[in-house]
């Protein structure tokens, strides 16, 4: 996988649908290896499930923060945890924007990195144009706060116009190729 070693850069990482989950794990692993604290924005898996998946990979839940947009959406119970913020619905971009701002302020760590999983799943809930405006807002916030950002997306999962806009927002676009064991 491409190294995410440069400071405060914004990446759009693309993978085929079958590799998106592996990409999520690989990115979190890389962020933690760099001594950076990830803020994971999940529009796909509830916090409780995510922590179990991460625990299996050896990621300690005290090493990352989460904004969970799907636990309430699924009718689940939102357990209080200072490292987790819950949003009632992935389409609630206003609350999501506020949660990102507050979480970044709350995180005491110097090196922080946002990971958004995933742009493609968000498109179920909002049109491409709205998604593009929202990501522009998030990217500006990250640049002002000098925080890195990684947006996961299914390859060929963006409108060409939106992709070109995203290309102008981010610093790098990376095609994810999973590591084949033994190679």
């Amino acid at each position: 996988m491409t190294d995410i070693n440069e400071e405060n850069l914004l990446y759009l990482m693309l993978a085929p649908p079958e590799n998106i989950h592996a990409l999520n794990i690989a990115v979190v692993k890389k962020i933690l290896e760099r001594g950076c604290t990830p803020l994971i924005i999940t529009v796909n898996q509830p916090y409780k499930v995510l922590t179990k998946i991460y625990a299996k990979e050896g990621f300690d839940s005290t090493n990352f923060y989460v904004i969970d947009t799907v636990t309430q959406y699924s009718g689940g119970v939102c357990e209080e945890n200072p490292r987790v913020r819950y949003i009632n619905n992935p389409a609630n971009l206003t609350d999501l924007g506020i949660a990102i701002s507050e979480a970044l302020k709350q995180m005491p760590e110097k090196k922080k990195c946002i990971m958004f999983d995933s742009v493609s799943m968000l498109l179920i809930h909002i049109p491409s144009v709205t998604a593009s405006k929202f990501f522009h807002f998030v990217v500006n916030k990250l640049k002002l706060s000098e925080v890195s950002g990684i947006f996961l997306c299914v390859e060929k999962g963006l409108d060409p116009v939106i992709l070109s806009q995203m290309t102008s927002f981010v610093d790098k676009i990376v095609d994810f190729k999973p590591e084949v064991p033994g190679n």
Partner: protein
Amino acid sequence: MSCKNEAPGDNAGILSEDHDSPFKAVFDRIQTGIIIIDPVTHKIADANPIAEKILGFSKSELINRICHGHVCPAKEGTCPVTDLGTSIVNEERVFLNKTGEKVAILKTVATVMLNKKEYLVESFVDVSDRKIADDRKVALIGFMNESVLRIRRPLELTKMNMQLIADHVKTGEFEPEEIRMELQIQANNITQMIKNLDDLVRMVAEERGGEIPKELRDFLLGK
């Protein structure tokens, strides 16, 4: 509007005297708009009935009218043919009609000698309807593209998520409530995708209303 008429009789058109000419008969009956322009003065010297229809001016209103800024949107001194030296062959251009509306046309400009004097012959067909159809087609492609992005890719992800949930069940490491939440998220997402698809069908049915038979349109709109 500059419409400087010359002496009486001058606005009858340069071809109007040749009543018996076969060219005059073709000029009057051809289903293409034709206007003849003096390249020096830029005044319209003649116009056929289809040109009158497309532009919305009568022949007497057109003759001796300066072409630029009126029937042609180019400003004085920027005539694409006489000032800029460009050739126009079957190019999409715009005319201004009597009410100032832009009319999309496919235009060709040629030089001819009439009565030992050089003129520009502008022949054109109205392509407004085709242009509207093209714009609608582009909009429709946009809708289709958006549907692929908001339905097909998320469906592929949903399929992968369902596989992942199946794996979670198999491991026995996840509690029933966690599995329920995961399944509920996928169910809600599929509901949203169906809604997106319905919205798309409705938008297409409304956009292309006139082209879809009423019964099918009512069915698509859920009436």
